[in-house]
């Protein structure tokens, strides 16, 4: 019966990491080696981002209050200054984790759209721990808070994960709906039990958590890099290793690639689904605490600024490749920083989401899995260029 239930569901994300899709287009890549294929993927994604950005710039330029000064502010907010670069680095770590969370579930053939809710619950659990043990010394408190975040996020995803794995309930809708519940939960705590009426920052906030719980930063030149960045990259690498080297990761990938094959190969499909969603939720919970103890410093409405949704873009740009999430996250962080700078022209922060949407459409159209003519011709063009480039690069060896 469960096979029956799953056969009628919506198509699943194609697992990444491999240049998936129609053989005709990828067989050439196999002979040209991984370089051409990787280059082609990257070029395609950059084209996608550029297309999205161009359409976005066009729409933004039409808005009142946007002039040359706005664009120079964007430059200063991203590459132009050390503080711009620092903010890009700071934005990268939550986006990377959020992308990894999305990619983990995508590789097992599911969509965890609930990262936004998981990050709230993770941050809530972390805050509760920080309030309970304010006096723990040194690195112990941040460590405990981080673990609390993982547990909080993982627990929040358990109901939808169990429903998906054992009953076949569409996880997209349930995780989404629970995001709103989590947001209301956040509002309850910051206006009720933990309210801080003197808080002057953006939105409502809880009492600040102790400085002991904060992650430290290094300063290289004028650029600040947080421990959070290292944590995020380590988690991305660790997750990559899990998928590359462990039976669990292999089962997930197999399941994402083809459910029936996985079943015949003896994979416990329900169990694998459940644990991959829980893993994804745990990483989602980590996003929340990272944002909190890296810079927001308290449990506040400002935690929930669509980071969980931007992770979808990160994963989509990386084709759900866990290592690919790293450059993709930097790219999306750049966008977020640019959108932040746009605020002086009265452009709301939600503009990031608009750009995200445009890029997701562009990515979906050009994705190898979709069989349309537009995407195919774009891919062919990109492939020609990249193959030529990589041949040239290896020209010396060949001769």
């Amino acid at each position, binding site marked *: 019966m469960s096979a029956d239930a799953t056969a009628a569901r*919506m198509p699943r994300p194609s697992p990444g990491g491999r240049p998936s899709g129609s053989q005709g287009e990828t067989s050439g890549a196999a002979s040209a080696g991984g370089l051409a294929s990787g280059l082609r993927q990257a070029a395609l994604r950059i084209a996608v981002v550029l297309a999205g950005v161009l359409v976005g710039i066009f729409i933004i330029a039409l808005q009142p209050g946007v002039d040359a000064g706005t664009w120079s502010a964007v430059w200063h907010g991203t590459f132009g200054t050390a503080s711009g670069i620092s903010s890009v680095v700071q934005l990268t770590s939550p986006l990377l984790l959020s992308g990894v969370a999305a990619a983990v579930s995508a590789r097992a053939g599911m969509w965890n759209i609930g990262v936004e809710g998981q990050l709230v619950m993770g941050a809530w659990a972390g805050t509760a721990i920080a309030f309970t043990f304010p006096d723990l010394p040194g690195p112990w408190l941040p460590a405990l808070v981080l673990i609390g975040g993982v547990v909080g996020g993982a627990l929040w995803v358990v109901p939808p994960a169990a429903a998906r794995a054992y009953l076949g309930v569409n996880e997209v809708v349930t995780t989404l709906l629970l995001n709103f*519940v989590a947001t209301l939960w956040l509002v309850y705590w910051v206006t009720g039990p933990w309210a801080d009426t003197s808080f002057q920052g953006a939105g409502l906030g809880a009492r600040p958590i102790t400085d002991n719980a904060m992650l430290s930063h290094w300063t290289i030149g004028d650029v600040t890099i947080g421990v959070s960045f290292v944590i995020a990259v380590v988690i991305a690498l660790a997750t990559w290793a899990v998928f590359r080297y462990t039976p669990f990761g292999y089962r997930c990938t197999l399941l994402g690639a083809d459910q029936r094959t996985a079943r015949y190969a003896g994979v416990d499909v329900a169990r694998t689904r459940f644990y991959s969603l829980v893993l994804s939720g745990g990483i989602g919970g980590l996003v929340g605490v990272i944002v909190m103890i890296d810079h927001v410093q308290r449990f506040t409405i400002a935690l929930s600024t669509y980071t969980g949704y931007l992770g979808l873009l990160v994963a989509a740009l990386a084709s759900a490749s866990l290592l690919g999430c790293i450059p993709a996250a930097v790219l999306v962080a750049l966008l977020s920083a640019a959108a932040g700078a746009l605020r002086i022209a009265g452009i709301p922060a939600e503009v990031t989401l608009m750009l995200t949407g445009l890029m997701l459409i562009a990515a979906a159209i050009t994705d190898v899995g979709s069989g349309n003519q537009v995407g195919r011709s774009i891919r062919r063009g990109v492939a020609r260029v990249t193959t030529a480039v990589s041949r040239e690069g290896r020209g010396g060896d060949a001769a």
Partner: protein
Amino acid sequence: MNETVITGLLLAATVSGVPVLLAALGEAISEQVGVKNLGIEGVMLMGAVLAAIVAHNTGNAWVGLVGGALGAGAFNFVTLAVPNVVLRAEETVVAFACWFIGIGLSTMIGVSYNGKTLPSLEKIEIPLLSDLPYIGPAFFHQPATTYVAIAMVLATSWFLYRTRHGLKLRAIGRDIDAARACGIAVTRLRLAYVTLGGAIIGLGGAVLAIVALGTWETNLTGFRGFLGFALVIVVGRGRIIPLLLGAYLFGLLLGVSGVVQAQGWDVSPEFLDMLPYIAAVLALIVQAWRPRRRLRRRAAGVPALAES
């Protein structure tokens, strides 16, 4: 519980239920032709913001409603229908893109309309019936949009199950290959009805802004679109009339918070606001639990173009 509370609750349920009903109806039509419109929330937001802008500038609520519906239909056509049906891009990714663009675009173009009072609709009083205790104000003293929404549901059900054209649509949803073999213009009809569904979803947003809340604010839909989406799954594919009951129940849960606050009872509004969303998740789980005998619609999510 006294009479005011019950009357108020029933009234609040109708007011909050109509936008959810329209969103669910639009999604149900879209599903009839085999396309899940998870961008529903974004389309609804666009409907709401466009209705607010048009109504505020023309001073006419009806023009606003029509403008919102048409604009949302066009938005749905560009961001969801074409990428999904014609370009055959991955359904869920496109749907989320549609949602995100809806949030971003509606927030951006609606910035200067935040909190502005919009022209409202006059309520139509049905003689005698509107004096009934409890249910009078909720069902028989309502703006025209409430009656229109109910009529649209009935009309859709009649159209799908009693007309030849409706049979074609159901055929597409059930088996796209068989439909194509019968000479049905699958791609064209899908495009048309996904767009029509989008316009109805947008009308839901427009009603929310103009009739239910009387104003526009950023992200005003608050996941009501997804409630409508969940409702379509819970009610079961292809069933139209039961949406009325489901939407009313969601409306009841959405309305609880306002009524309780008006009574000054000491319950945290956040927990009351959670009710409809938790109920939707539970309903989805319960629906999956019971053994199903519904006809499976194999073409859901299958691209509309033949393999080339």
